[in-house]
């Protein structure tokens, strides 16, 4: 499986964020998108996720499921956690597992892996920022998607949480997955660097 973008151009609010951007990633590889604030890291992830329309250039996934579009094969973990405060931890996760569909794993095991199995009945409103992040990571584990698009995934995670997350990413890569992460800090897994917008 190979994900590649050619000559990507992104315009937001009338301002050109980047132009002529090329990137490529293959199965089992992590791509760390680096760049200063406002250089377009998040915009690149949202272009791949189909949440922004490119002003130019193409993105193509070779060797994926031919029946599905690229966004349908991606997990997008943005700044916002997509959690409903009124629902419990288990209900939030169960909803996304049911809604996203496809191949899925036991929700309780995912929660155990991210260290939230003791809080399944707690409403999400009572979770801390780090716990909310852990719960969104559980979504990535419960529903199988080959491509993970992560936007500063380690923010709000404590040191133990970052180690746990690095382990999860290694497992995903070993299973033939692909990770594209916008980050300032080191990812914690072997990754190739993609620098956008000049020096950081």
């Amino acid at each position: 499986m190979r994900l590649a973008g050619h000559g990507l151009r992104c315009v937001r609010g009338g301002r050109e964020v980047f132009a002529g951007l090329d990137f490529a990633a293959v199965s089992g590889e992590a791509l760390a998108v680096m760049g200063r604030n406002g250089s377009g890291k998040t915009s690149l992830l949202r272009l791949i996720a189909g949440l922004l329309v490119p002003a130019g250039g193409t993105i193509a996934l070779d060797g994926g499921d031919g029946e599905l579009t690229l966004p349908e094969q991606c997990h997008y973990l943005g700044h916002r956690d997509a959690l409903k405060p009124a629902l419990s931890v288990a209900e939030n996760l169960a909803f996304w597992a049911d809604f996203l569909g496809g191949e899925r794993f036991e929700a309780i095991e995912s929660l155990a892996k991210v260290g939230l199995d003791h809080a399944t009945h707690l409403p999400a409103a009572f979770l801390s920022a780090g716990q909310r992040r852990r719960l969104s990571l559980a979504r990535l584990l419960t529903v199988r998607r080959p491509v993970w698009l992560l936007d500063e995934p380690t923010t709000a995670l404590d040191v133990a949480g970052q180690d746990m997350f690095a382990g999860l990413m290694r497992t995903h890569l070993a299973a033939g997955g692909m990770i594209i992460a916008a980050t300032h800090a080191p990812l914690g897994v072997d990754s190739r660097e993609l620098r956008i917008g000049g020096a950081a």
Partner: protein
Amino acid sequence: MTALSALIRRDIRIALRVGGGALIGVLFFLTVVVLMPFAIGPDLALLSRLGPAILWLGALLASLLTLDRLFMADHEDGSLDLITMSRTPLELACAAKALAHWLAAGLPLIVATPVLGLLLNLDMVATAAVALTLLAGTPALTFTGMIGAALAVTLHRGGLLMAVLVLPLSIPVLIFGVAASQAVIVGPMTFGAPFSILCALSLVSLVVGPFAAAASLRHGLD
């Protein structure tokens, strides 16, 4: 289908929990209708003549009250991104969300109507007629209102803009809803004609609403 039923169940569950919109709508409806007799005075004949119009206006405003949050809440917490990316067509997801909103916020208004009919001196038949027209007409309010809710997300403006956009669209529903109820109470028109048009309006909005809302959400991607 699993995806859509999961979405409907989630939205209804959120609406019914503490801080959800379902109860607020009914309470607002109750307040508006209870206030009317105090403003109009104790003229029972006048009250029963105005009754259907008051109930319809109350239901219209109450259903608009929570509608602007239909997509805004999902937009703010990032859920809308994932819904847009998913394998479920956005049109169907919009329709499911509107259906859930109607079940949680629209249906309770209809259940409350017989109680409120008493306050407006409406007899059994008249109350039943109003409830029936509300049952046929409120889906149209929800599904056209959904277009406004989607535009509110696209334009990053909530609340008031949504009311300004949606209220003109709901005029036909109001006209035929009240006309059908009045036909039962005072005549001489038949109940069937305005009621059929009301049903037609609902059916049209059921089809057009999800497509228009999805188009607006797609256009507003950022």
